[in-house]
């Protein structure tokens, strides 16, 4: 019998702001999945290609089109930057292929803009906000001030988090929308400080987040007693920021390399190819998402999108990286989420030893209930 040939396109940021959290690491994670899958099943030939979408939705959609139309790509993965993820999700639906997003974060991908061809892996804005907000609210940190990047992703992150704060009886002390990208946050931080809120929620990403954290420390805001909750902070960014500045932060993450024996073993393998860098949740999501996809193709011996999607949603997931989980009707992959506190430099014993676990949020509670998402795929 002819082997099935599938082509995977890793479309992410290879040179910009998000290249460290996705970039080459995502391609390596995909290659590892291909390798590991081959050792259990050799009936499928997998080819991995990759490209740089420069975080621009138009570049992303051009490449996606060309990949689907011309190059025979079956699945596109990663897609950091929500706008690029949404754009590719639309095209994938039109071309009836499959997209597995692990880099982009907007919860709209499985909400109002959901699609039968889209799976959202690792994390989304709702789950980040939910994790951090719930953990902090439980500790009595119930008044919040948001420092939000003035773009769609920032707004979504603020919206999802604020909803949870309010739901739990918390108070919103205010918010400020800073231009994206920004360099100086001192003015906004001072406004946050003046608001007297217990928590300053950073609803932004990458350099904006690390810049705001650094400057919060410079202005003594953290020493002043206010907590900084960086709603989205990849471990690669924490690494660049350093523990000196990052200590004490509360972050929500879907994956931590040092969680258990399985994750450690896999991450060491990954690190060998990446100059010692540990994988982010986006990169880990590529591995487990691709494994799940390949298993589904092998199981039905067919790579047509709709049957494969059906098979993927029907089969529960269980892998070394994300543990047990499943894919819901709306395309949301659910699994446990973790709330971490960043260690102090003295607590950190070895490279990349960064997190103390504060809470584990069980899969069923970690993501937005399907009924709240307004996804047309969900039959009410």
């Amino acid at each position, binding site marked *: 019998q002819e082997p099935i040939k599938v082509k995977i396109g890793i479309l992410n940021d290879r040179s910009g702001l998000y290249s460290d959290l996705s970039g080459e690491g995502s391609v390596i994670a995909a290659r590892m999945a291909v390798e590991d899958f081959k050792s259990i099943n050799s009936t499928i030939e997998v080819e991995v290609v990759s490209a740089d979408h420069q975080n621009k939705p138009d*570049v992303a959609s051009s490449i996606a089109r060309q990949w689907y139309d011309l190059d025979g790509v079956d699945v596109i993965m990663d897609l950091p930057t929500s706008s690029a993820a949404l754009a590719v999700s639309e095209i994938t639906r039109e071309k009836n292929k499959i997209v597995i997003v692990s880099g982009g974060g907007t919860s709209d991908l499985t909400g109002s803009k959901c699609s039968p061809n889209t799976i959202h892996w690792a994390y989304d804005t709702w789950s980040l906000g939910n994790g951090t907000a719930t953990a902090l609210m439980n500790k009595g940190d119930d008044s919040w001030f948001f420092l939000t990047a003035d773009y769609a992703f920032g707004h979504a992150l603020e919206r999802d988090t604020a909803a949870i704060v309010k739901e739990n009886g918390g108070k919103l002390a205010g918010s400020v929308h800073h231009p994206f990208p920004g360099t100086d946050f001192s003015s906004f931080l001072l406004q946050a400080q003046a608001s007297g809120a217990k928590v300053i929620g950073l609803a932004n990403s990458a350099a904006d987040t690390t810049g705001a954290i650094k400057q919060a420390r410079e202005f003594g805001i953290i020493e002043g007693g206010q907590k900084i909750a960086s709603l989205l902070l990849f471990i690669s960014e924490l690494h660049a920021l350093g523990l000196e500045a990052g200590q004490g932060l509360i972050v929500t993450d879907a994956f931590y390399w040092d969680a258990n024996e399985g994750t450690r073993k896999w991450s060491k393998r990954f690190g060998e190819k990446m100059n010692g860098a540990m994988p982010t949740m986006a990169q880990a999501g590529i591995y487990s998402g691709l494994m799940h996809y390949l298993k589904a193709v092998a199981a039905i011996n067919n790579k047509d999108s709709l049957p494969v999607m059906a098979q993927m949603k029907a089969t529960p997931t269980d892998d070394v990286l994300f543990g047990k989980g499943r894919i819901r009707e709306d395309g949301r992959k659910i699994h446990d989420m973790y709330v971490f506190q960043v260690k102090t430099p003295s607590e950190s014993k070895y490279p990349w030893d960064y997190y103390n676990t504060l809470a584990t949020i069980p899969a069923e509670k970690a993501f937005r209930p399907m009924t709240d998402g307004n996804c047309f795929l969900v039959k009410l």
Partner: protein
Amino acid sequence: MTDINSKSTSVQNPTLGMQPHHAIIFLSLLGLGLVGPFLLYPVFLMKVMCFALFACAFNLLLGFTGLLSFGHAAYFGIASYIAAHAVKVWGVSPELGILLGVASAAMLGLVIGSLAIRRQGIYFAMVTLAFAQMVYFFSLQAPFTGGEDGIQAIPRGNLFGLISLRSDFMLYFVVLGITLGGILAIYRIIHSPFGQVLKAIRENETRAISLGYDVNRYKLMTYVLSAAIAGLAGSTKALVLQLASLVDVHWSMSGEVVLMTLIGGMGTVFGPILGAAVVVTMQNYLATFGAWVIVIQGCIFVLTVMLFREGIIGLVAKWIKKPL
């Protein structure tokens, strides 16, 4: 007394009011356009064509009137938003969407142009940049543009309510028509009596004034025309990629169109087309090289400025000693 027919000049010639070698180039462009989709990926070609039209519109201003607008992305972008919104939300047909896009770009051009035209040189460039930044800010804040996400999944609809444009192939020929039409229009503008005055203004503005020309009105007119054609390119692009986003209004887009025009040869009719093809191809095929794209782009800027300021087509025109 004087032998009037002693010499023939460049103006009188038979080919549709076009110089013969220009007619040949237009025909070969048409030919290339017709066989193109059988050789290359149609969506890529459509993208090249949209940018070619955009660059030609920009060049109408820079190359033929001597005005460096550093905010042309505003017209490209705003038209693509308006066309996208009209088609997607109001459900109008694609040709009407494009028309609305063009009209809004022209309106915006009229407003910004009438203010900017009063300044000269680098100040003109800065005023246009400033207004373009405001348009960018508007696009970021206005609810209908979808912020960072842009307007996505724009339906291509049916041309005149009849012909479905869903297939890339059908759309391709529509875009080819629009682009060639647009470039022919620019060609006609340049070679009209109006264009002749523009040329005179670029050459020697004071003298044109002293001959009695209301130079500012000519400049404004050109500015609006250029904005409208940039809008045509922008709205067509929105339909092709089914996406209108902030990238289209960002100042780096204004920079890119300068690059295209410069590489191809500013002040030539055909240069910007080649320039656009080179830049889009580069971005497309160098995408896997990551940050090297920027380095290469930078090198092209430097090389162009240091070695061939006339641009590729400009150089060719110099060799064959004929305007292209």
